[in-house]
């Protein structure tokens, strides 16, 4: 922390941007300080420029290329501009409102096959080649580390920081308590909304859901079978939930990540085989017919944050 100010000093900001350890106090401050997050974003953009130039520098003839250099062999289905899930049952179109998200994650390779050259845990992201991603299922959370098991059985250890964007989906109804900001999508009957999906977010996505009713507001009267959504206009909408209700927490904690859940991390490969990533996400399993439209323009922080937001809600 800066002795002359309440904000992070440059050393902390640089450490955060480069994925090095920062103190607990600085980490806590950064998590809640919009100004410092903006500063981190600015330094991130500068760092991105340096990394991108370095990546371009690396594109020279490589006569001594080692035989076990990693190949990009996975398809990377989560980084498409348009993701189509299943067949039509309820056409769900999410028009996502961008927010800011910043953070760093370090991905270290371990487990079977690491470095074998036959498979990789990281794939490049289309539209922004210097970004890479790892995806699979959540094997375990160990302290600040998240271990992702890829489809090929490789393990990726993801170390999170305070500002790492985490999104979790799954059996999280218990995390919906009074005062929680939510957007609920479901079917209405007799004045009650039967929730198919609940997104927990203070800045909820704008939902356009043909055939499905959506309501945004604050939770009241939370119980085991449902809750009431109080809209900004003061309208109270009773909501019922069930075991089939899918919950996405857009700003989750590590403890909310679901073991076995579909999990991905995206970010930047470091010079020593690490990945300085921006987010760890467990997107929801949208219903058949759901269409999640994600627009990625380029490698700018804004565009990447759009991507992260979109993926958090259903990539």
């Amino acid at each position: 922390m800066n002795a002359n100010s309440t904000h992070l000093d440059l050393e902390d900001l640089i450490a955060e941007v480069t994925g090095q350890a920062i103190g607990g106090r600085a980490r806590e401050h950064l998590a809640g300080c919009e100004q410092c997050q903006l500063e981190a974003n600015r330094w991130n953009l500068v760092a991105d420029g340096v990394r991108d130039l370095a990546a371009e520098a690396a594109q020279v003839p490589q006569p001594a290329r080692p035989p076990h250099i990693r190949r990009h062999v996975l398809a990377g289905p989560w980084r498409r501009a348009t993701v189509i899930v299943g067949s039509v049952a309820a056409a769900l179109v999410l028009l996502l409102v961008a927010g800011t998200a910043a953070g760093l994650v370090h991905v270290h390779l371990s487990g079977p096959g690491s470095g074998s050259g036959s498979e990789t845990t990281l794939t490049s992201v289309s539209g922004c080649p210097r970004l890479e991603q790892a995806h699979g299922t959540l094997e375990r959370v160990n302290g600040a580390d998240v271990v992702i098991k890829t489809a090929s059985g490789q393990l990726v250890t993801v170390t999170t920081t305070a500002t790492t964007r985490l999104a979790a989906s799954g059996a999280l109804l218990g995390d919906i308590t009074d005062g929680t900001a939510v957007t609920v999508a479901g079917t209405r009957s007799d004045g009650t909304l039967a929730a198919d999906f609940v997104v927990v977010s203070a800045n909820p996505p704008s939902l356009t859901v043909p055939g499905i009713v959506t309501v945004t507001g604050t939770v009241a009267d939370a119980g085991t079978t449902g809750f009431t959504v109080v809209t900004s206009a003061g309208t109270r909408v009773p909501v019922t939930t069930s075991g089939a209700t899918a919950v996405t927490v857009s700003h989750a904690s590590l403890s909310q990540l679901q073991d076995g859940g579909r999990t991905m991390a995206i970010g930047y490969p470091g010079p020593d085989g690490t990945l300085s990533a921006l987010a760890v996400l467990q997107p929801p399993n949208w219903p058949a017919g759901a269409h999640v439209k994600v627009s990625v323009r380029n490698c700018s922080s804004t565009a990447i944050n759009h991507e992260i937001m979109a993926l958090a809600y259903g990539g």
Partner: protein
Amino acid sequence: MNDPHRNAGAAAFADRRDPAWGDAELLRRIGKGDEDAMAAFYREHGRVVFAQVLLVTGERVLAEEIVQDTMLAVWHGAASFRGESSVRSWVIAIARRQTRDRLRGRRLRVVDDAFLADQPGPDPGPEVMALDRAELAEVKGAIQGLASAHREVLGLAFGTGLSLPEVAGVLQIPVGTVKSRLSAARTALNRILNEKGQNL
């Protein structure tokens, strides 16, 4: 014995660290003339060194030559590594000296630290806002338009994996001066973006 630096001009590949060979062990083996260890050293550090040198010089051929010279220096000087710094900062410091020697005849622009300490204020001004609006491509172009001392410190801070104290060690300046130089580099970056009239 073959010169193991022969392929260093293209030392621009990424690879995973061989867990069986730590950096210190690599240097020990290199010191004994182990060419396989030298190749592994290329894989571990070559790309980063090349990118840093290229960022400073802006000339690919020259950067390749400097990396060759650097790796040759590593080959001959591995036994002298005393472990007082990380291997990464050690090799980058060698590359920096090689770069300085190569550019000496060209009068490498020296930037006064008093000028470099021109830090932005605590509140984001128009120049910071320019960075907020900028796209990556513009930022990259602006970085390439910076003075070499600014490019160097940005490259060391963000492209090499070194901590700020390690960057200070490479540059042989105090950590506070590194921070001042970084702030000044960002200010200069914003100025370039503003001068180019980025309105994104």
